[in-house]
């Protein structure tokens, strides 16, 4: 188990380093950030002074080393737009993103579970209920941002019952959370449903029924068995969820790190982009680490192998 954990953590560190290096290089080769920040008409001396002040006059390799050195110590250079430490700008926005992603995760998981259970359990006539799945296929087929725009149009503009932008009112979270949840719903439902059906076909569930267990208890045991593949997908979908926040937060003006990433990119705010992406990459990798480690908890076979 210990080697298993160590190996996972080692791979995680490598992934973070690789992703950050790629981001750093791509950003830095696309142009001189100083030219975009200086007011029009600035002379060469003013540009040079600004470049020195921000450390852009150093060689790319030195900048790369100092970026990693600072990042390891939790220091990020000041955001160019906000003129504050980039990390604190990101941390300021983080609760909003966690709240949105968390709500969407709960919403998506609960809906997926309900739909899977409802479609797998045979009705009295022995035929499975199929119609809830059409809803799932619909959310899979329609692009996420379009669902968002559609929801804005229906609930915001036509009915005028829900706020469409900002995080001011408590109800502001409803539309973005539904949009974000719609992105993870199809995968989760389908994996959970397929595994659940497979579990229900296994001998132990038949034995349970033969021993006189009620259909609900049998379903409970089968659902536990179906958790392992579902949790794997959940880990992958957490990434989709974070990626989804970038679009959903922009459409709904939700003040989180996703929207911050877009505005930082648009304004060529390199330190902020780096800090923001570092954070997103870390969260994604940590979630996957947790998912990997949770197999041990869910499946005793994994625990005893290591």
């Amino acid at each position, binding site marked *: 188990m210990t080697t298993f954990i160590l190996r996972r953590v080692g791979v995680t560190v490598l992934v973070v380093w690789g992703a950050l290096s790629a981001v750093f290089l791509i950003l830095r080769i696309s142009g001189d950030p100083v030219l975009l920040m200086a*007011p029009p008409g600035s002379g060469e001396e003013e540009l040079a002074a600004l470049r020195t002040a921000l450390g852009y006059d150093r060689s790319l390799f030195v900048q790369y080393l100092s970026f990693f050195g600072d990042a390891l110590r939790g220091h990020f250079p000041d955001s160019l737009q906000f003129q504050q430490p980039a990390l604190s700008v990101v941390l300021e926005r983080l609760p909003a993103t966690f709240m949105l992603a968390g709500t969407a995760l*709960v919403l998506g998981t609960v809906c997926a*579970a*309900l739909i899977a259970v409802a479609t797998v359990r045979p009705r009295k006539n022995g035929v499975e209920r199929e119609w809830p799945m059409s809803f799932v296929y619909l959310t899979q087929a329609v692009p996420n941002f379009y669902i968002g725009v559609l929801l804005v149009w229906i609930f915001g503009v036509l009915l005028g019952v829900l706020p469409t932008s900002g995080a*001011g009112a408590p109800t502001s979270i409803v539309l973005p959370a539904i949009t974000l949840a719609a992105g993870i719903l199809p995968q989760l439902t389908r994996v959970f449903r397929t595994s659940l059906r497979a579990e229900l076909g296994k001998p132990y569930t038949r034995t349970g029924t033969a021993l006189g267990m009620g259909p609900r208890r049998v379903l409970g045991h089968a659902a536990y068995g179906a958790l392992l593949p579902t949790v794997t997908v959940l880990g992958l979908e957490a990434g989709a969820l974070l990626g989804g926040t970038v679009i959903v937060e922009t459409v709904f003006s939700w003040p989180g790190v996703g929207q911050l990433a877009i505005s930082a990119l648009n304004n*060529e705010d390199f330190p902020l982009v780096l800090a923001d992406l570092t954070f997103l990459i870390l969260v994604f990798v940590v979630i996957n680490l947790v998912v990997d480690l949770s197999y041990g908890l869910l499946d005793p076979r994994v625990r005893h192998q290591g």
Partner: protein
Amino acid sequence: MTELSRRSVLIGGAFVLVAALTSGCVSTQQPADRARADQVVIALASAVTTLDPMNTNTTRTDLSVLSSIYSSLVERGPDLRLRPSVASTWEQVAPDRWRFHLNSAARFSDGTPLDASVVAWNVARLQDTSKGLRQTSNFSQLAGAEVVDPLTVDLSTKGPWPALPDALSSLYLLSPDWVASHNPVTAAMGSGPYELVSYAPGASVELRARPDYWGDAVSIREVTFQTVPSSTSRVSGLLSGELDVISDFEPSDIDRLRTDRSLEVNQIDTTRMAMMNLNSITGPMTDVRVRRAVNYAVDKKAITDNLLKGSVSPSPGQLVTPLYSGYDDKIVGYPYDPDLARSLLSEAGYGPTNPLRVDLSVPTGTYVAGELVVQAVAQQLEQVGIEVNTRSLTYSVFMQNYLKERAMPDLQYMTLAWPTLAADGVFRLFTAGNSYSYWNDPQFTDAVNLASSSNDDSVRQEALAEAAQRARDEAPVLFLFAQPGFYAQTAALEWKARPDDWLRPADMSWSRSVEEGAK
């Protein structure tokens, strides 16, 4: 997992879902409700980056918000004229010295008076280069401040600087005592008509009218600046009644917004001039006949009518819009004359067998309908036999080529504005040797230098007129049009969009008749 806990999770989850959906079914606040309470919600296209008014140059977001909390010595009114603010009167006492007489009633919202020593402290803060404040470089010609008496302060300049009062209209004054104990980046306390209620970075800024404001009373009592980065979301927010004022949307949204009679759509000529900068230093554009030919070859009117929905008028061959001092209404622009363009090109040695090939670049997503305009221009140039190779670049690469590599292509789409609305500000960017300039014209450069340094207004106007005429004739750019500004608002809100980008709640009010009707 036991039967009970699994079930409770499912039921709990379902409960959360239902609760979330039903609690949402409460009607959102509408403009009529806000009109009764004198509230307004203004959309900002990008987040406020700092609350320190000396550390930003962005009029449209940061400074618009901060101009409500802070005040300046002089301010630019909705008519674009300078008017008194903290300074009730000012005069030039020497060519390089200005005297400002302060309003004795001016007070910060914490009650401390705004006197001459406060102004001097602010000038010192601005000039402290170790702070790296963004406004500092706007005041490179300012020498210093000197307190004459508690209500009189002198500002001295390095040589004559006639545009000082214009520049001062975006210099907002902080309180030294307050700055000593607060962080002006995340908090704000000024002498303006509003005070800060809350600031949620990236999301919103809420303001409330000061009951003890020393200047003219404002009509709007409560203001919310809401960050709405997507232009589609701004449009739907206005349509749903969540927002009262929006700006910066696609020209294609105009027709949709116009169908709603509770809204008012405004298009204005901004102070930003759109043009194709021509590289007169190397390549085919060094030949003035070619520069004139491209000016004749493009039907500016067709572009503004079709692509920009007739929202602006074409430029009469000038680098600045009519709102600038130094705009010359005697100058006539280049008419659309493709035949003349063709004959000028053949004079310059180009023809069907030897066509002129040019490179054109445009930054992506930077200017209103920029890529559409460039396509149209390229097509029209091709109709007179010029082969155009168009490249869309990200803004950073575009600026890198333009300023750092000094490798501007033959044509480059860009827009220019100058905050003080003085033509010589824009003209300076075309003088020989300026890092923005790809045109070496001694006559133009001399005229601009004379205009900026002279204190005699008639000499100044004459020099500016000469420079403008020279630019028209020598065509360092392909003159296009003033960049349009698109604004839309709830019809009951009385406010006129300003060409200089300021979005000030102090200029707004709810129309009384509509408000009565709503009751």
